[in-house]
Every structure is written in structure tokens, then in C-alpha cells.
């Protein structure tokens, strides 16, 4: 039981990192219908920016915020300068995936070119542990969880209660109708990328804190976990991404009890595949999708 609980603790931390990342990834998809394979490397770049801040003596959490801001800005620029021109030419969905792959190569290896292949570290404040409900946390982990919760609530509030949020949902479900109804689609898309970049950047720093190192490949595995979380909840559905992040995050850690350490991540992904076999559009399946019951 102890093990289950302590793993649950790790699971919550992992989920708190995955949540903003998965929501960010999903926002990009729902705003522009692009599957951004470069998202992991965007996170990594922001994480390194955070490192630059801390290596100049800035407070870790301030660095996190700055990294988030950096991520937000680069995200909007990337969308406007790279992805939108390609989309305007009529590049297909899969063509865009390839472009984001190229983007991820450029970003990731530029990071390696600048900072080298070895890991760098954030200065973590020393501190004791805190015991909550049978689980053990370090202070940073608690802050991470806190950030995750805040982002989840803020996203929910944004989507539900603000006009901007409603506009985003409108653009996500039918962009041309939305803009015909007066929604400034371009601005909404920019906002979506801004937010997703911020969340990704913050998540990148959070990841660096959690695994105690920052390296140019840290986005690679993270990307797959993000995709797993986003797909589990249903591609393009923000609430689904949150739920997916929770499930994947906890599973990644809990399965370490049953399976030996190296196998643990497999279970999370295996669960994703199992869920998709049963419900091909993810946990939050829409009713229109379920009508297509006859497989061709």
C-alpha cells in the first residue's frame, strides 16, 4: 500500500507536468488543425531559456515564468512565420506534420549546437520533505503540483466563462462559421498559440526540475507522453487532454510497482492503444463519430 501511495505521489507530479503540456498541444491542434511534432522541442528550448535565467542568478520560479513567456512568444512567431504560410498554400494535413518534424529537428539540434549534448541543471533549493496523506513530496514537487492545478483551473475558467474562451471553442469547432459570426479568428488563433506556448514552456521547466536535468533530447520522450495524453482524451479536446494527462501521468508511475522500472512507461502507452481499440476517438468520443459503426 505504501508503494501504491508513494507512486501515486509521483504520478500526481508527473500528471501536473503533463497537464499543461497536453493542454498546450491540444490548443494548437484545435486552433489550427496541425499536429505539432515540434512541440516537445519548443518545450525544451523554453527549458533552456529558463536555464539561462537561473545561470544568471534569477530565482527558479521567476525563471519558470520567463520561460513560459519566451515559449509563448516563440510559439506565436512559429505559427505566424512558419506554419501559417504553409497552410495558406494548401499543404495537406500530413504535409504539415512533416514540416513540424523538420521544425523539431532544427530546434532540437540547434539546442545541442549551442549548449552541447550534456545535461544542464537548475539550482534546486535544498529542503526537506513534506508528508501528505501518506505520500512524500519535496517542496518543488508541491509547487509543481500547484502550478498544474492552477493551470487546469485557469484553462477551465477561460474556456467556460470568458468570451475569449467561448470564441476559442467556436473557432475550434467551426472556424469559418466563427469568423462569419464576427469572431476575430486570427486573433483567437494567435491567443491559442500564445497560451499553448506559455504552458509548454512552463511544463518544460517543470520537467527539468522534476527529473533534475535539462538536455536537448528531453522533449523526445515527453512528446510521446503528451501525444498519448492528448489522444487518450480525444484529439483536440482540452478537457480530454487534462483527463488524459492525469491517467497517463499516474499510470507511468504506478505501473513501476507491478512491472520493473524500465517497463513501466510501456504500460501507459499500452493502455492508450487499448483504449483506442475500444473507442477509436478517445475517451471523450463525440456522438457523430460513433455512428460510423461499420468498419470498411
Amino acid at each position, binding site marked *: 500500500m505504501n508503494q501504491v501511495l508513494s507512486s501515486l505521489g509521483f504520478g500526481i507530479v508527473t500528471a501536473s507536468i503533463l497537464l499543461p503540456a497536453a493542454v498546450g498541444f491540444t490548443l494548437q491542434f484545435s486552433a489550427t488543425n496541425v*499536429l505539432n511534432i515540434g512541440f516537445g522541442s519548443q518545450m525544451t528550448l523554453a527549458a533552456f531559456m529558463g536555464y539561462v535565467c537561473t545561470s544568471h542568478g534569477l530565482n527558479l520560479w521567476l525563471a519558470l515564468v520567463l520561460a513560459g513567456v519566451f515559449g509563448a512568444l516563440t510559439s506565436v512567431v512559429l505559427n505566424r512565420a512558419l506554419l501559417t504560410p504553409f497552410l495558406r498554400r*494548401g*499543404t*495537406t494535413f500530413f504535409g504539415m506534420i512533416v514540416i513540424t*518534424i523538420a521544425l523539431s529537428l532544427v530546434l532540437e539540434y540547434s539546442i*545541442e549546437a549551442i549548449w552541447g549534448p550534456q545535461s544542464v541543471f537548475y539550482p534546486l533549493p535544498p529542503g526537506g520533505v513534506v508528508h501528505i496523506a501518506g505520500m512524500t513530496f519535496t517542496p518543488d514537487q508541491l509547487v509543481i503540483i500547484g502550478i498544474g492545478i492552477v493551470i487546469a483551473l485557469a484553462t477551465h475558467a477561460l474556456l467556460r466563462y470568458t468570451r475569449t474562451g467561448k470564441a476559442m471553442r467556436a473557432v475550434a469547432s467551426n472556424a469559418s462559421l466563427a469568423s462569419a459570426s464576427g469572431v476575430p479568428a486570427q486573433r483567437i488563433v494567435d491567443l491559442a498559440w500564445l497560451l499553448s506556448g506559455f504552458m509548454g514552456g512552463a511544463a518544460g521547466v517543470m520537467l527539468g526540475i522534476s527529473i533534475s536535468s535539462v538536455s536537448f533530447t528531453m522533449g523526445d520522450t515527453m512528446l510521446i507522453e503528451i501525444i498519448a495524453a492528448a489522444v487518450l482524451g480525444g*484529439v483536440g479536446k482540452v478537457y480530454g487532454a487534462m483527463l488524459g494527462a492525469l491517467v497517463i501521468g499516474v499510470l507511468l508511475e504506478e505501473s513501476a510497482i507491478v512491472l520493473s522500472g*524500465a517497463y513501466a512507461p510501456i504500460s501507459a502507452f499500452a493502455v492508450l492503444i487499448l483504449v483506442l481499440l475500444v473507442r477509436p476517438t478517445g475517451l471523450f468520443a463525440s456522438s457523430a463519430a460513433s455512428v460510423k459503426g461499420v468498419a470498411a
Partner: protein
Amino acid sequence: MSYYVTVMLMYVLIGVISAWGLNLQFGETGVLNFAFIVFVAAGAYTTGVLSLGHPGHGGYQQYFWGAAWPWPLPWIASTVVGGLLGLAVGAISLRRLRGDYQAMVMLVVSLIATYLVSANVGFLNGQVGLALIPAPFQGSLHLSTLGYRWFYLGLTAAFTLLVYEVMRRITNSPLGRRLRAVRENEAAAVALGTNVVATRLLTMFVGGAVAALAGAIEVQFVGAWAPSGWTYPETFGLFAAVLVGGRGNLGGVAVGALLVQGLFLEGTVLLPNIGSPDLIGAVQWITMGVMIMVFMWFRPQGVIPERRKVFDGGGAATRARRFRLPLVPSKVGGGARG
């Protein structure tokens, strides 16, 4: 210098064979197999395990089974394993999922495969991988190291031609047309009686087999194989080759492989010593990324675009004029357009 040429040619040919396999899946049928490198690895491991002989008695490598089969049996086994694995992966990920989900599931599968192999040391020697894999006929032909390399190169070239012929027959036949139909418009293909799922599984089978063959060839050239060499981004390099060269076109794809694989090896040699090997490696990947973007912008149909199939008086398909890629999806109806 001659030594270096053999290395480069080998990697180009291996890349060409792999790219043709991916082209069948992605270029012809539109299956986004982001787990492609797993099939190459399966072929490499199969040949490795079947060439190393039994593990044990103090050997420092662990792997399951083990045999010392004479060539070409390991290669044949690899091809079969690749095909079957293709079917298995296809059955899981291609049946009920939408295209974008399929792509993502494939990425996940690629990662799962890496984990599975790395985690279990007894399976394929885990993270360390297999090494000291013997090459075919190395002992029996009394050739110098360089001479053997040329021999192996010749062998590879022969198999490259074989794969070319197989691919050519498939793509020029009614089967190839069926693949392209599924790529273009799945719903219409279904409405005309095509079993789309079976078609996709077929390309997974053949593509997987070809990928595994490439892996088998590569592993006996290099002599070793480990998980770090087949992480999921490797697949992206092959996609780059297919796209840059011209998908759906065997010659184009070969050119793409030449450019992408060849360019890198050239690049390594020609680049002045600007720094550590890591830096050079990083620059290679950055170059590849930029190259992909440039090609996707200026020449999305590839260096050699897919050729239009024209039927002569008797009905034989011949070469024809260049393909004009309609960049705007055809669902935008109406309006005379040529």
C-alpha cells in the same frame, strides 16, 4: 578513399531500399507509418540473432534463441519477420482509427518497441545491443577487407535491383492503382468495393518485409545494432528522403535517399573541423530539417514528381508528362480548372 566510397554507397543503397519500403506505405498508399524504423530494426535483430550462434558459455551478450544459419537464410527470415510484424502493427493501429490517430499511434508504437527491447536484457541484449555479428562468406572468400566490402556492396546492389523490380511490378499494376486510390479517397475506394483495411495491411506487410531486409543488410555490414540507433526520429529521416525525392516515384525516392543519406555522409567528410563530432552531427540534422522545409515550400511534389500514367492505344501504361500537384483539395467544387 576507396574504403570511404564503399561505406557511402552502402548507406545510400540501404537508404534506398528502406525508402522504397516506406514509399510503398506512405507514398503510394498514404499510410503514415511513423514506426517504420522498428521494422528495419526487427530485420537487423533477426539476422543478428540468426548469425551469432548460441549465446551462453560465458558470452557477454544475451539474446533469445540464437543460431548460426548460413546466408541467405537469415535475410529470408528477417524479411518474413518484418512482414509479419507489419501485419501485427497494422492490425492494431490501422483498423478503426482516423488518419491522424494512426500516425500518433505509430509514434507510440515506435517508442514502446524501444522500451521493450531496452528493458529486457535477455531478449536482445537490452541497451547494449548486439555486436560482433559475422558477415556472410567472410571467412570462406579469401578477400582483403576492402575486397570483401566491394563484394558485399555488389550483393547489396543485386538485392537493391530485386527490390526495385518488386516495387515496380506492384506500382505499375492494378494493385498499385488500388493503393493510390486508397491514398486519394478512401471513401470512394470503399464505395467501389475496395477492402481498404486489407489494402493497408498488405502494404504494411510488404513494406515491413522490405524494411527488415534493409535492416538485415545493414546489420551485417556494420556488425552491431543497439536501441540508440533506431529511435523514432530515425523514421523521420526516411520520410525526408521520400518527400524530398518525390513520393510515389521509385526513381525520385532513390534520389531523395541519395540526397539525404548521401548528403550527410558527404557533409561529414567535407565539413572542416568546426568542432566536436556532436556539433557536426547536430549541424547535419539541422541541415536536414531546413532542407525538408525548403523542399516542402519550393517543390512539394519532390525532385522527381509522381508520373502521370497514360495508356496507349493498346492500353499499356507508359511514361508521360509531369504531374501538376493540385495544392488545393479537390473538395472545393465547381469552376473549370483546365
